[in-house]
């Protein structure tokens, strides 16, 4: 069972949260006709799926209802950082 530190409510159990998949996935410009099918395919379907540190989105659905980002190890499930939506990965500027 994950124990996720919600930045607004504190540490809570996994069932209170909804998983939002990988963070920092950037959508190509839909009005730019030069974006290739391969680029759209990467955006829509391909995933980093790392063994180790993963940056992902969570929503505290049964609490404050707010979204935030989490840096979590996919092997140990250790949560290394929690940071706001829209912010770069910790250690990047």
């Amino acid at each position, binding site marked *: 069972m994950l124990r996720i530190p919600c930045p607004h409510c504190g540490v809570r159990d996994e069932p209170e949260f909804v*998983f939002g998949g990988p963070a920092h996935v950037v959508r190509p410009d839909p009005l730019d006709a030069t974006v290739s099918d391969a680029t759209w395919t990467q955006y829509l379907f391909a995933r*980093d799926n790392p063994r180790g540190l993963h940056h*992902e989105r969570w929503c505290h659905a049964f609490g404050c209802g707010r979204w935030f980002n989490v840096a979590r190890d996919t092997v140990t499930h250790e949560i290394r950082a929690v940071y706001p939506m829209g912010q770069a990965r910790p250690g990047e500027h």
Partner: protein
Amino acid sequence: MTRPRYSLLRLAREAFTGNKGWEPAWRDAEPRASYDVVVVGGGGHGLATAYYLTRAHGVRSVAVLEKGYIGGGNSGRNTQVSRSNYFYPVSSSFYDRSLRLYESLARELNFNVMLSQRGLIALAHSEHELELTRRWVNGIRMNGVDAEELSVAEIARRVPILNLRSRYPVLGGFTQARAGISRHDAVIWAFARGASAGGADIVQGCEVTGLRQQGGRIVGVETSRGSIAADRVVLSAAGHSSVLAGMAGLRLPLTTMALQAMVTEPVKPILDTVVLSGAIHAYVSQGDRGEVVIGGGADVYNSYSQRGSLALFRNTVAATLELFPCFSRLKIMRQWAGAVDVTPDTSPIMGLTPVRGLYLSCGWGTGGYKAIPAGGETMAWTVVNDRPHPLIAAFSLDRFEQGALIDEGAAAGVAH
């Protein structure tokens, strides 16, 4: 390498001579410097691929590289169910081929894989699910595969211990009579024995750490036990496929998750079929040793941990006990999870890649066990001919770019 056949006569002779004549079922090999084909991953799919390469195509120089021990990943963590009740014709023809191979596997491999075609009953818990079930059954029958709608009375007759008026009321369902379970360790060892007898090297404790390329072609692999040259490499490493493909610069449409399963203490025979509830995502069957085997869902987030979360475990158990109240006093003996690689359309990815000589057999997600024989057969053909076998052409990696998804999850309302 010739292998003495297993037979009743042999069993009797060994019994009277102290069982001193048994030889190892397969050869635990040291890696050589080069092979024609290297298969990464010593699970069911990898070993079956090696078996069909040696047996059907006469390829003698094959290695299966396994970082742990054979069958120690998802091949030893599944719930042993085989079935071919798929909605789309491409899935149906592939999985039914696999079930047919399972039906003759024990004879083909001279190894008792304990296939028991006890049927699978899929339950419908709402009017909507009942409608979906009818559509599903029609689809399966149109594909030429057996499927039969069941009334509530018929389900009650076949599974008397099922609670029909629980929080998940049973309104109907359907069965595939040819579905069933087999013994997963036996399937792994049978293919290992067959591949080894055909001349393949099975190398354990050998982790692949790099894929060597030259001019867009694969030329070998780096491993924890040295470099191995090979101009054809098959990746069949389930949950670790993204990591391996990343070594060749490929970014795959896969998410690795922890798929949960559990068994209870052994009890006398009480359940003689496989019961599936898509709504609560549980597969329930009773193994030959008397343990009730429960296949649950996958934790929703990325995980390579091979451990299941308590949250989903609790939900699976609670829902299963609603359906089978008489199991409430059974102790759970073991709970585990496999690192499964799930694709966006819940269908596998098989065949060629943009790197020449590199082949993929991944994306098996929550349903790879049933596909082992046909997966191995078609991948071996694909590697030898360097083009996709007709049965798996639709499962190619480029279907995502073409938009030709095969969404069995949506079609059947259940994960595969």
